[in-house]
């Protein structure tokens, strides 16, 4: 039973990824992204971290995907006619990806990874993540918040500059 569910999740991820990569219309790409992210969240859950899974759903699916949809809708005028991909570029991208994929595949198969036993369930508690964020990884946490602030300010600035009539840098 567990195996079936596992394959379901993997399938979601792969189908979503395929839709995101291969579809022609942007909306299908976005939907594919959403499906893939959902599948990933489920995988995270299965890998033992419900908190991360929840965060993935919340932020990615709830925030980022919606933002992308909004952006797509705002530029809907030029996406009504789907931009066809040029074969040259597609072929070139395919070749690049293939080479890359084969290379890393070789790396993966040829490396022996260190293994460790599964930690106790107390180690997986959410509280542990919280304390880690506030104690050990405090700097990273704060820096992330600063980055987010800067991103917001920057986004506003970039999006505003045209309206004031001034030339963007």
């Amino acid at each position, binding site marked *: 039973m567990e195996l079936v569910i596992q394959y379901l999740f993997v399938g979601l991820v792969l189908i979503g990824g395929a839709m995101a990569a291969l579809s022609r219309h942007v909306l299908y790409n976005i939907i594919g992204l959403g499906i893939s992210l959902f599948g990933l969240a489920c995988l995270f859950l299965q890998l033992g971290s419900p908190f991360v899974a929840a965060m993935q759903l919340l932020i990615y699916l709830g925030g980022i995907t919606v933002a992308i949809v909004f952006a797509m809708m705002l530029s809907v005028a030029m996406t009504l006619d789907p931009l066809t991909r040029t074969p040259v*570029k597609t072929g*070139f991208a395919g070749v*690049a990806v293939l080479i*890359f994929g*084969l*290379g*890393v595949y070789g790396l993966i198969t040829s490396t022996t990874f260190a293994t460790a036993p599964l930690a106790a369930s107390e180690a997986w508690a959410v509280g542990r993540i919280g304390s880690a964020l506030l104690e050990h990884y405090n700097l990273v946490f704060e820096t992330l918040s600063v980055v987010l602030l800067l991103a917001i300010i920057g986004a506003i600035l970039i999006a505003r500059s045209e309206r004031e009539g001034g030339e963007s840098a």
Partner: protein
Amino acid sequence: MTDSLSLILATTFAPFGAFVLAILLLMRQPRVAQLIVIAGGALSLAGAVSLLANGPVDPLRYLWFVSGDIQLRFGFILDGLSLMFGVAVALITLCVMVYSLGYMGHDPDKTRYFAMLALFEWAMLSFVYAVDLLQSFIFWELVGLASFFLIGFWYEKPSATAAAKKAFLMTRVGDVGLFIGVLMVLQVAGHFDIPALLAVDNGLVQQAAPATLTAITLLIFVGIVGKSAQFPLHTWLPDAMEGPTPVSALLHSATMVAAGVYLMARLHPLFMGSETTLGIILIIASITTLLAATMAMVATDIKRVLAFSSISQLGFMLLGLAAGSLFAGVFHLITHALFKALLFLCSGLFIHHFETNEMEQIGRAGGRRLRFATAGLLVGGAALAGIPPLGGFFSKEEIFAALGHDGVTLFSVVALLAAFLTAYYTFRMIFLVTRPAQIETEETHAHAEHGRAEPWSMALPVALLVVGAAIAGFWGEQIAAGLGIDMGHHTLASMAPALAVVAVGVLLAWVDFGRQGAARTGFIARVPALERLFTNGWYVDAFYDAVIVRITTLVATLMHAIEVKFIDGNFDRLGRGVLGLGSGSTRIQNGWVQFYGGWAVILVGVAAVYFSMGG
């Protein structure tokens, strides 16, 4: 010894110093430059005369450098031959320099002219007095260089530069032979020292095998053929008349072309050691003498007549030398130098006054009204034709005697025929200038009535040479003594054929040109084919043009095509290829970010593959 050394150094290097001064310092002051050069010439003459007065001394030798067991020396040989000829050269050069004061007076480039004259005198005198064969060769070449500069003096005229090139190239062809001969001497004898080569007991004649000696002397003769304008390398000399007339007087009659004859005289014992070479020289000299004389018969330009005459007379000298008489050749060399220079300078007087070289025009414009020039022309012409008691008669007599030594031979007949033709064309020239069909009496009347038509600078040398040409014949005994040869005696009977031949020549010239109502076309005009043959120089020049010049031009064009299309073209293609490669490579930068990203991914992938292979 040091006395001789300082004299010889003064003699040979005074003109060099004048040359350096003229070139470096005095280009802007022509008058001072001219005087400096003339002073150099005078100093040279004084030195040469003092040396002659001191009499022959042992040669002076100085070591130049040593290479292995070969020692190269330079130095001076001061025997009768070099002393006498040195004086002749210095004297004629000084006369020409003074004459040039007047002749080149209005030329803006006269400093360069005088400087080149000084260079020439240095080279020529150093050649005359050289003791080492290599030294002679070096100055032989320098003389050719000076000749090149002087023939092409008016370099804006394309004909002048072409003539200078032609002269230089043709003499160069001869010089190749000379150089090979000189090197062969080194190979056989191990040194270049001339007195040692000529020594009776262990000279080159003894050291070399007969075939080798013949080869060496023949090769040296090739150089003489080039420098002294003998057949087949004679065509440069008529063209060399593009240079100023004093240059023609100095280089191309008296001194430079005589250098070849002088070299043969200097190395006479070597030539006498090879019968084959002597025979070949006799043949070539005979051909040259007759050929040039025929061409002189139909020439209309006064300088060309004299040029052909020089070629012919040089052949005459070589005939004398090759017949075995050193004295005959050298005697005629000296007398010829004097009267040929005189003839050229007189022709220069006519040219300067009437501004044309054509004899008929000079005659019609009243040539004989220039009495001084006419007198000089008469004296010189008579000497050239061989009329006694002028110089040419005695020297030619010696040559006839040498050729007829073993009875009448083909060559003595040739010599007599040449003497006949010489008399004929000489007096043709004189009559055309002095006794034209009619004289147009406009401007020259005014000129001649002013008394002296020529400046003193031009008249003085001419007068000096007139005296010299007249009395040179009587110096025969001294010249022979200087050479260490017994002159011998000539009977009236032996002189008869020469006299007869000369008389016939003058008479024929009178009939054709001199008497009133004469046709003034020459007896050759009755055979138009012959006349055309002579006028075109027996088509030798045409042959050279058709064969050698054309072939060389073809090869040069081919080489140029190869250079441009192949060598240069390939370099251009290389450059263009690199440019193309560059511009092609820029097409990768098409601005598509995704391309750039793709390339980065490929590279990472390649690295991953590499590392996964255990690299």
